């Protein structure tokens, strides 16, 4: 397609206007009209997004409720689904494969359950994020709102889903002898940082998925690979015993591993600081801020192009 020049380049003789002789652009400028569908500045975009916070929250809650509304047990599935998930992983990795590698049952089972839930939070944020625009084209083409509302709303839905899973997590932890203590307060900052990281990731894949919907097909394989290298079912320290320090550290700074390990450290009594890489909080903060800020700007840059068929 060759682009003809606009902005004054096109004569608009067809317009029956009293402002005879003006081009469309000049006429628009004269009367203070703005280009429809143009991308707002970053500050204006953030302001608009803040104005839509009620919509973002309501949309995420609606999606969450709608998920199980046809089931007989209804919202009970919010808790039952993660519980069954944990059960399956325990059966395969704990009973059949003995992935615990010397960890006692009291540590390994909460370790596994926490890992599965925390990783699922990131995993499903990415999965819903990649389809946030491409799967909601009807909405994008019918109504006006900052498009970042959609990926953010979907991550928020996953956060609420995780809060339900936390109920199961607490029950399992207490059941295996890790009782609530001051360390449990660390859960709040961990969740917050992971939510920021997930949202940034969702924004990035949402833009990519809007351009190339095929990513939705590819993503499960990428995510599964990521899961197996993040130490969800095994401890990276124990698995990599005897390997070089560098290799262990490289696996440990993986953001998914960082948030999982921090959550385990907060929750499980027998999982001490020795399992964490040095500067773990700084790493967690870095991933959250860098990915969120980067993802937000990256998404905003294509704002005016979402919805093109």
């Amino acid at each position, binding site marked *: 397609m060759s682009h003809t020049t606009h902005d004054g380049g096109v004569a608009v003789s067809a317009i029956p206007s009293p*402002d005879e002789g003006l081009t469309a652009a000049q006429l628009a400028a004269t009367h203070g009209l703005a280009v429809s569908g143009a991308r707002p500045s970053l500050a204006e975009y953030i302001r608009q997004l803040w104005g839509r916070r009620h919509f973002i929250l309501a949309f995420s809650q609606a999606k969450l409720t709608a998920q199980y509304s046809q089931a007989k047990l209804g919202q009970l599935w919010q808790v039952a689904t993660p519980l069954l998930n944990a059960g399956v992983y325990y059966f395969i990795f704990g009973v059949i494969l003995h992935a615990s590698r010397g960890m006692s049952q009291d540590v390994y089972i909460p370790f596994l359950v926490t890992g599965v839930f925390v990783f699922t939070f990131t995993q499903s944020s990415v999965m819903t994020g990649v389809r946030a625009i491409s799967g909601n084209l009807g909405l994008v083409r019918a109504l006006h709102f900052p498009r970042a509302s959609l990926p953010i709303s979907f991550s928020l839905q996953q956060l609420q889903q995780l809060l339900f899973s936390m109920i199961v997590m607490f029950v399992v932890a207490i059941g295996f002898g890790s009782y609530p203590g001051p360390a449990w307060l660390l859960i709040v900052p961990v969740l917050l940082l992971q939510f920021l990281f997930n949202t940034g990731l969702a924004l990035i894949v949402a833009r990519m998925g809007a351009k190339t919907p095929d990513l939705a097909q590819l993503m499960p394989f990428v995510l599964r690979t990521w899961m197996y290298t993040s130490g969800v079912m095994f401890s990276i320290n124990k698995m990599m015993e005897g390997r070089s320090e560098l290799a262990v550290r490289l696996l440990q700074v993986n953001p998914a591993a960082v948030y999982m390990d921090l959550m385990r450290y907060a929750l499980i009594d027998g999982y001490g600081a020795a399992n964490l890489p040095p500067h773990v909080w700084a790493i967690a903060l870095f991933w959250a801020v860098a990915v969120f800020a980067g993802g937000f700007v990256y998404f905003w840059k294509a704002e005016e192009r979402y919805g093109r068929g």
Partner: protein
Amino acid sequence: MAEQNAGHDAGQNAGRITGPDGEPAPAQGAVDRRPTVIADNLHIVYRVNGARTGKGSATAALSRIVKRGSDEAARGVRKVHAVRGVSFVAYRGEAIGLIGSNGSGKSTLLRAIAGLLPAERGKVYTDGQPSLLGVNAALMNDLTGERNVILGGLAMGMSREQIKERYQEIVDFSGINEKGDFITLPMRTYSSGMAARLRFSIAAAKDHDVLMIDEALATGDRTFQRRSEERIRELRKEAGTVFLVSHNNKSIRDTCNRVLWLERGELRMDGPTEEVLKEYEKFTGK
């Protein structure tokens, strides 16, 4: 909200602006000649993946990826040029009908004016934020009517207080609760007519600067149709400019004072309602 203005930009073109209310109306028009929507040589192109020929096979898809760098046509991306070089200026107080046969680009043009579809070439300038009458896409069948009223209102950009204020109005207008307490049931349990009535009621609850209506008049039973036509006339009074897409020449005659006739994505005629409709009816053989 957009400023209700035109006076503050006087400095840019001092020779032409004469008063705080913008241009004095020229001899031909009684309406205030302040433009609200300007379309400038607008082109809209849809891209459809993998729609070339009948062979939607894996090999075809593969060759598409291999030929990535080359021309889009060669990769099997079909382009549908839905709107081709449309230019017009709409003024405050006008009600503009869009007519044309199916697939002539009417709805696409509306979406482009609303800024919902990016333009391939050309530009649309608007005063304030034009909005499309319709919230269907934001509603969820698995939620109760009640929650959908709130969700739909928020999606249209209303505040929680505004929704609370209008909630009863919306429910009463839809008539959903006339036959029992249906508003607390999921929307999937509604008949298609009931769902359409609720959707229209939610959509029509908001006031708009530039309002665009896409065949919204055809929902519900006779009583509801009359009620919704009434509501659209009200909205027209409040809105600066109204666009109406319809295949019903009578409702165009009733509501519009200007008509744009689109055919194959091109603007075939633009003028007063009677003039254009006469030609259009000749064309369609009525």
